[in-house]
């Protein structure tokens, strides 16, 4: 899933302080799972903003809506009838949702209410960690199912580097060395031959290097 984290409320206040009517717009998907932008967080953020502006003696009407998704036209259309009532929207979906909203509703300012962080997993409640950088050309088949692009600090495709000590990365003792994990896993799979082969130079054109990407699937298009 896409993992996001709450933005400092001061940043959001700065964006909306001159508005009279604000919609806090949540998303029922990834950001709900990582407890940053779902219905519950919409309520918390809206309450916090109301309280702040009340204390400031400012009258700002703050409404709450949570959509099923903010990355699909059909769900964004649900607010078309009400969007003109608002001077601004604080979207607490990921950056994708914020942008799709901005594309759809040209004349309404859309502000991000979360920081979109990475593609990751829930290790335990309150702890989400990165697993994928969406490089567009998956190499997990040869790295024991552990991604060096997202998990090695240097994105080395032929690791580990000299900074790997006791299974930990040189950037922090808290961070596992991705290549130690890969080696351990390849050993468990009896696939150390994969480790001994030098990985070919990566084609980064499928990553952001080739500009904004698109997946164009004619087979599923109407």
């Amino acid at each position, binding site marked *: 899933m896409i993992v996001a984290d709450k933005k400092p409320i001061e940043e959001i206040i700065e964006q909306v302080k001159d508005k009279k009517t604000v919609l806090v717009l949540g998303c029922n998907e990834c950001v709900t799972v990582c407890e940053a932008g779902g219905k519950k967080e919409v309520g918390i953020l809206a309450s916090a903003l109301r309280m702040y502006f009340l204390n400031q003696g400012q009258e700002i009407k703050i409404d709450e809506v949570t959509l099923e998704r903010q990355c699909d036209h059909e769900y964004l259309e649900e607010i078309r009838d009400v969007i003109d009532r608002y001077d601004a929207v604080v979207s607490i979906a990921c950056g994708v949702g914020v942008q799709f909203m901005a594309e759809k509703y040209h004349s309404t300012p859309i502000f991000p209410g979360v920081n979109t962080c990475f593609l990751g997993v829930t290790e335990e409640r309150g702890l989400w960690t990165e697993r994928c950088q969406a490089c567009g050309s998956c190499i997990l088949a040869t790295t024991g199912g552990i991604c060096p692009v997202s998990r090695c600090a240097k994105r080395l495709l032929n690791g580990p580097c000299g900074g790997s000590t006791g299974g930990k990365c040189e950037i922090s003792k808290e961070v596992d060395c991705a290549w130690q994990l890969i080696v351990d896993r390849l050993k468990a799979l009896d696939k150390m031959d994969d480790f001994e082969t030098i990985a070919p130079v990566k084609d*980064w054109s499928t990553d952001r290097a080739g500009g904004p990407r698109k997946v164009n699937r004619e087979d599923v298009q109407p």
Partner: protein
Amino acid sequence: MQLKRKFETGEFAVLAEIEPPKGVDTSRMLASVKRVKGNVDAFVVPEMSNAVMRMSSLGGAMILQGLGVETVVQVCCRDRNRLALQADLLAASGCGICNVMAVTGEDPSYGDHHQARPVYDIDIFELLQAVQSLQSGRDMAGIEIGGAPEFMVGSTVNAGARGKSPELELEEMNKKMAAGAKFFITPPVFDKTALDPFLKRVDRSRAIIVPTVLLLKSLGMARYIQRNMEHVYIPDELIDRIRKAPDKVRECIHIAAQLITTLKQEGFHGVLIATLGWEDRLPEILELT
């Protein structure tokens, strides 16, 4: 320092572009520079233009400085992060290079290593600010450095480029000036009037605008540019002129020389002559101006 002096006194400066080799054989580059060094104030050494891998601008410039000529080294956001860019700037200064030009760099997909991941750790404005910071004795992390470099700082401006808004270009140039850029090199100009909408909005006592004069090599090249390089304007009359000429190369040299003369008369601070490997034609062009 010749370039700085000329820019400051308003004397017309002649810059020439000289591509470093794709390889280590610098003999051609050196021979070209030796032939024209008396007529050129500074040599602009591109940093892997069009994202084609070749010897770096800093490397090429250092080699040319060995001939006693003045160079303009390019620093490019595409291939280096802030550590490397600052390190190269210090190295350039340490090697006696006193002119730098900040460029964004074309996307790797234009070049010959299209699978490469571009860097763009900082953009051109941040890079210009970094140069300013180094010149004031501190690096981008705010740490004091031992001895500050001094550069004549330049960048690019899309003046006269088709499909660009002159207002936006001006705004961008003003931002670059605020970040420390003093001189601005334009894309190739084939008709001085193409610059007019931009120039009308520019205070030329503040901004040093240096148009690029690109030497056409053939009718085919002129037509190719006209058809494929949307931002460059080549008038139909120019194409006709080359087409009708019995000696097309000679005509192209005349065209470049006439344009340089016009730009000089129009009060530009200088011109950058780009010959794309035909540096040996530079003396002929300059003789005609």
